[in-house]
């Protein structure tokens, strides 16, 4: 589904070049829930951007369902993000001038769907996240947890093949965090949809089925989640 082959990403800051990711190879299979964990500045968000066609690697290849993302035009990458990838961000990233339903419907509206059909689908997704009753509220009328649920609904409205989450519980309390993580854990579909979650929180990482640790732009380990629990207990 998602494959990174020896990707490196270097950022230029003034006269310095900073390698965020160095020679990383990673495969995400359909139906997996992969947690990518690492400290601040380890390159985990950069990895997610590379996987989600938000950015392009300095070297190496990023593939989505066998397609090299670098070979696609900017327009093709945009369409890919619109139709086959959903995003959930730490800062919720809802448009303040749209209601909850309109925020959820945004990918469909961008694709040219009629407003009625788009909002109908948005309402269905809000129901899945138990927020249908707040469909006509603006973001500044919602709590943090509610906003993140709207973001999750938006991420699945186009029925994507992959959902990428960047610190989805970073700005939430523990109760809301658990709710969001439970929602995300229900998203993977065997043989189809994969979920990738970037986090620095081991508790959040435990919701996944596979854990990839990253440090200083390189992968440290890649293990199923149960082994992580055993390691923690041993410590």
């Amino acid at each position, binding site marked *: 589904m998602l494959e990174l082959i020896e990707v490196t990403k270097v950022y230029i800051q003034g006269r310095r070049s900073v390698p965020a990711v160095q020679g990383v190879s990673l495969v995400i299979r359909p139906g997996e829930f992969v947690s990518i964990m690492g400290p601040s500045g380890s390159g985990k*968000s950069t990895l997610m*951007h590379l996987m*989600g066609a*938000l*950015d392009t690697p300095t070297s190496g290849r990023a593939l989505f369902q066998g397609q090299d993302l670098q070979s696609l035009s*900017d*327009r093709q990458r*945009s*369409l*890919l*993000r*619109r*139709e086959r990838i959903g*995003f959930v*961000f730490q*800062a919720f*990233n*809802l*448009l*303040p*001038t*749209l209601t909850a339903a*309109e925020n959820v419907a*945004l*990918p469909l*509206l*961008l*694709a*040219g*769907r*009629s*407003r009625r059909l788009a909002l109908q689908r948005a309402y269905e997704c809000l129901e899945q996240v138990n927020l249908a009753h707040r469909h006509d509220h603006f973001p500044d009328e919602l709590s943090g947890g509610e906003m993140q649920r709207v973001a999750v609904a*938006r991420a699945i409205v186009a029925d994507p093949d992959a959902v990428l989450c960047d610190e989805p519980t970073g700005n939430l309390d523990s109760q809301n965090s658990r709710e969001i993580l439970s929602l995300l854990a229900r998203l993977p579909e065997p043989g189809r949809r994969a979920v990738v979650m970037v986090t620095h929180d081991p508790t959040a990482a435990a919701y996944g089925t596979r854990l990839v640790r990253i440090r200083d732009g390189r992968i440290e380990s890649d293990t199923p989640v149960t082994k992580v629990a055993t390691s923690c207990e041993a410590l």
Partner: protein
Amino acid sequence: MATMVYRLLSRRYLQLHWERGLLIVASIALGVATLISARILNHCIEVAAQDTTTPIDAAALYVSNGEAGVLRQLVNEIRAARIPGLKAVEPLVYDRVTLPDLENRSAVLLGAEVSTQILDSSNPLKVQVTPLAQLPRWQLLPILAAIQQGDWAKAAELWDRLPGRLAVVSRSIYDAMVQAGKQDKPLRLRHALRDVDCLVVGVVDFAPDSPLSSLGKNLVGMSVGQAARVVRPLPPIGAVGGGFLEYAVEQNWGEKVNRIDLYLEPHADIEAVERQVSAVVRGRAAVRTPDAQRRSTQEVVGGLQLAFYICALGSMIVGLFLVYNAMVVTIAERQADIGILRALGATRGQIVILFTFLALVLGFLGALAGIPLGMLLAETALWQFREELASMFLNPDVQPQRWDSHHAYWGVGAGVTVAVVAALIPALQAANDDPAQAARRGLQRRGRLWKLLHYLMCLLLVGGGLAAIALRHHLPSTRTGSIGGMAMLLIGLLLSAPLMVRYLVPILRPLVQVCCPFVIRLAFDNLARAPARTGVVLGALAAGVALMFQTAGVGRSNEEPVIAWIDQVVQADYFVFSGNMMSANTSNSPMRAEVVEELRQLPGVDHVMAIRYSRPEYNDTIVYLLAVDAVDYVRATRERVPVGLPDLEKFLDLPDTDDVLVSENFARRHKVQVGDIITLPGPRGPLHFRMIGTVRDYSWSRGTIFMDRRRYAELFEDHLVDMCHVFLQADTWGQQAGVVNLQNYVQHRGLFMTDRHSLRSFLTDLIQRLYLFAYAQQVVVGIVAALGVVTALLISVLQRRRELGLLLAVGATPLQVLLSVLAEALLLGVLGTLIGFLVGLPLEWYILQVIMVEESGFVFEVVVPWKQAGGIAIAAVGSAALAGLWPAWRAVRTRIPEVLQYE
């Protein structure tokens, strides 16, 4: 992408940030308003100018000598030549008359060949005549017989020779006659103080598209011969012999008509016809197409029209930069939104469309507001000059059409285009932003390409402007180089303002840090933080100040010399004219030459100097010809000014010669020197005059020619006068008697008089009104600039929220916060004003020493308008401070927990 998404995103954003949208709409509205007002004013000026020089513009070719008229005999010669393609040859006579029996109503006397113009149902003038019962049928029998035989020329001649003048009048005049109970009486016409009676035999109705429709409701039609004898009277000697001799001389008087109109068959070769007619005319008149006929007039009004359009363009460009500024900041604020949209799959094209759609909507709203505002501005300006305009028209009651739908299309087109163009670059930049950076809310590094593009545009405009100015004499039109180059240079300087700010800041910072209080330093740092935003606003402010400064400077520079000249030439005690001052100056209300002699006979009157104004074509433009009683002028002025006046004695060389004096600007503009021959169109062909000297004169921007009035009357066969300068005897009795006698005479003759003081006031008031109008247009630029200050400061406050919250949190009082924002506004105002003066002074020099000299030949010294500059500075800085009040109030209302929570 469905427009619904754009509407959704834009509408909600505008609802939240309505003040930003309002400022953009206001900027566009003001720019569109100046464009619309310029279009309306230019149209009115063009109509007025065309109506003055070529009224009833319907023919394919004209045979004309301008105001000098052409010989009627050319009509028969052209007809006799039987030129292929030539359908009709129509002589035309027209002039303004008054109707004393109808409350001195103004009317236009039109003389045309009755037989072909009126009785033919397919006449090109598209009129229909309804005969009245007064028609003397027995007199018409020979005429009708000639028409039946198809001999139109004979019919016309017979009509001209009917005893008594037969006339047709427009429906409105006939209704007025009926209302006054005078429909069965002869209609009295007054022209040049001479009354003639005519018998009304028909009523004229116009087709809506008739070329006579511009004459409105006030037409008196006659045969061309009879009309010619009304408007071009005999020389005075004819009157001495009494009625019979006058009749006899009249019958044999070599008639002149205003012009001869040529109508062609469909698909005729106009150039071939023009050539063949010219061969017949043999230099006794010019044969021209309507376009060629309009060329000279267009040359005169073209400069003024260009000035109006440049002012409008200035407003729109300043508005464009301010909209650009606002859009840049809007897009910067919405960077996160852009990142979200891109992350969700919006393409670059969709991002561009989103912001240009927003700009389009705002531009459209601005245009809708600007169109009625522009109409109001134009009406206000036209109201200011209503008397002057009415005097210029052949028919004083005509109102040029103010409005047509093209103005709306232009207004909407301009408003939308400015807004979309202003938004395009920021939108393209936003679309090219790295989506990952946008999603991370990281700082976007603007590509080098954009910076390079900016530098290139500035270089092109500044360099191109300088090159156009330097090489203007090698361009097809000098005006394109001098004025177009200046416009390019100013736009380039405006565009480069952000770059200049970037370089100025490091130079000024140490000075500010050392010399200025903390509040000012804070304000300066904030301005320096965003050189692009600051630069655009400074540029707009400076543009407004520079324009006002140069207008004030130009006004001051020519005010003194012109007023001194007026004091010098206006030496007479009283001025006698018919109609009003403006109609006298435009020769729309002349007097017969006998008036001069009658005035001279009045007890108490010492000298009378009569003037006849004329506007012949010379060197593809219209110049002024002043025919004066040179000897009387010199004698009278010598007595008034014993020390003498410059150039006065030169006038003594004019009588009984074909010598002329010219104004200094005439000599400069047309490159004429002493001894050169000046050729002017005369009624029987070109007339040649020898230039013997120059005099200082500011009457006309295209130059003035002075000649002796008696010689003028002989050569141009024009025995009318427009104004009489009356000098009373010096002793007290003479003064008193002269005034009384003059008043009695003027009243008796239905004339008007004014004294020296009133005339001087009239002239200075006219000049001041013209400058006031120029100021008004620049005030619009100033208002747009002030709006820019408001926008910039609102944005600054928004971006400084955290800083302002911190200041309040650590103990700054609301007043201190308010002062810091006001300080920013004041700093913008002061810097903008200083830059405006630095640009305005060379601009004033350029306009006086280059443009004015090339356009008019007038040379004025550059005078710095210190007093007006002080006023402009106070207004500019004050406006900036006022503009800062609302943003300052917003700053004071910052909620500390909100902004610190964000941190």
